[in-house]
């Protein structure tokens, strides 16, 4: 559980004095699905490129499987699969040939090709030129390429970008099964929280190059506090009763809004209202969505 698969220490990348990534320290345990979130241009892709050794950090370091990446690049990359931004494919080649170009470099058994094709459900389409594929199929081919060498760590940069809801769902299910079925640790980046909240167990949020949140998704969910809404027969009269329980109560569109109460408090409030002669139509809890919380964190610039 506590085995660190990936760790960055004060990772920084500067372009002409502007820090694209600034002192990012993140960590992934074995079996994690780590959601790496941030608005476009926050530094996600730059960070991921540094994790793969594609660009050199200005300062700080990347450690994978407990070893520094800079000194053990080949050994580490052998155990890592990746998909960076849009998938790379040769349109004039078929899916099988595309995978074969990678297989020849990785020198893994030919059986891997059929295996990854069936994992991403491209079997039956593998002998068609990739230029005729839909975006979702190309994306799945990208994931197949990442899986080809049976990696222990999978790094996916916005794998659901540009996909329709069905495609997003499919990729999400695929990624969710990775740690369970293949023991793979996954790092997945996205600019949409809703996309990864159902698969990630840990979340890191990056804004303007800085990691502003890193913890389990449950902690994030707890931070998303909710409100109580009451619909009653005579809202303005009822408000007077409610203010005894919560000073913050307000009337809004004929509904009373107040901060969340405990179950006991809620029960007492309702019985008091009933005793005072009000009919209580509805008691609703309105959760602030994670998306709202996320937007607050990243400064509402995410569009």
């Amino acid at each position, binding site marked *: 559980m506590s085995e660190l698969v990936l760790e960055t220490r004060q990772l920084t990348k500067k372009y002409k004095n502007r820090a694209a990534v600034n002192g990012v320290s993140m960590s992934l345990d074995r079996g994690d699905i780590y959601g790496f979130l941030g608005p476009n241009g926050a530094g996600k892709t730059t960070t991921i*490129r540094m994790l*793969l*050794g*594609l*660009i*050199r950090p200005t300062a700080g370091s990347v450690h994978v499987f407990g070893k520094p990446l800079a000194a053990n*690049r*080949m*050994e580490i*990359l*052998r155990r*890592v699969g*990746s998909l*960076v*931004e*849009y998938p*790379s*494919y*040769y*349109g*004039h*080649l078929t899916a099988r*040939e595309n995978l*074969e*170009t*990678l297989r*020849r*470099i*990785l*020198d*893994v*058994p030919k*059986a*891997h090709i059929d*295996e990854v094709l*069936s*994992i991403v459900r491209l079997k039956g389409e593998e002998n068609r030129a990739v230029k005729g594929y839909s975006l979702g199929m190309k994306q799945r081919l990208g994931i197949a*390429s990442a899986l080809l060498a*049976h990696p222990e760590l999978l790094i996916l940069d916005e794998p659901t970008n540009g996909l329709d809801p069905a495609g997003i769902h499919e990729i999400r299910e695929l990624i969710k099964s990775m740690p369970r*079925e*293949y*023991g793979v640790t996954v790092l997945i980046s996205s600019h949409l929280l809703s996309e990864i909240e159902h698969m990630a167990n840990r979340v890191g949020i990056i804004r303007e190059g800085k990691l502003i949140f890193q913890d389990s998704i449950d902690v994030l969910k707890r931070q998303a506090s909710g409100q109580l809404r009451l619909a009653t027969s005579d809202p303005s009269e009822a408000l007077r009763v409610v203010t005894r329980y919560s000073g913050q109560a307000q009337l809004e569109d004929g509904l009373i809004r107040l901060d969340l109460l405990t179950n006991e408090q809620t029960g007492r409030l309702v019985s008091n209202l009933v005793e005072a002669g009000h009919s209580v139509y509805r008691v609703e809890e309105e959760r602030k969505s994670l998306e709202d919380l996320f937007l607050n964190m990243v400064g509402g610039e995410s569009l």
Partner: protein
Amino acid sequence: MSQTTASQNTANRTPAGRTTASRGTLLGLFSSDCLKLKRTMALPLAILGPFGVVALTALNYGLRYDYLYKLYEGKHWSALISNTIFLSFLALLLGMSLLASQLAGREHQTHAWKQTLALPVSRLSVYTAKFLLLILLLSFSCLLLFGGTWLLGGLLGFGWEAPLAQLAIKSFYPLPAGLACLALQYGLSVAFRNQAIAMSVGVLGVVIGMYSISLPDFIIWKLPLLENNAGYPEWSVVAGTLLGVVLFTAWSLHFVRKDVN
């Protein structure tokens, strides 16, 4: 279905299931690059070049056969070979630019550099593999030129006993002599995403090549013509190869250090 896949996968995940021999080596990269040539214009281009040169020479002789036959009386073969090399040398310069741009441009277009370089491979091997493939393709062109010229001379009635040594020199020497041009074109094509830059330099090279007979020997676009003050074609070969190695090394250092975006 997925259950079977899962268990297969787990079985294969053991280290024993992996072959470790030539992983990420130059050979693997080279054979991967060969596969990528499938259904591209690279091989047709390598054939079209020498074919075009031989066809143009044939046209030249066909249109004024009697005149040329009288003009070169007694030295038909050497005249044919000299006529051919001036065309083939320009075709070679153009072919180098086109092929280098084809091979590197495709990697840019498909955003494949980042995928390839995130694999366990050395960047120097990635850079070298494509260069070797370029040399192989152009060697094939030279071979076709050699055979094509021989065939043409025979068909024109110069006799099948061609001066093979001379023909071989003029067919094969221009490639190593042009290695500097090739290293330059390849480096430009890889370094700049925009292939217009490499192609502009390539076309400029061809234009300079056209007038190179009157230019000083150190112009790299003159080297594959095999004309120099020393009077030995070998001089051009040695100079071109040495300069080629220097340029290749410089560009590969750039490639190894480059940030991949």
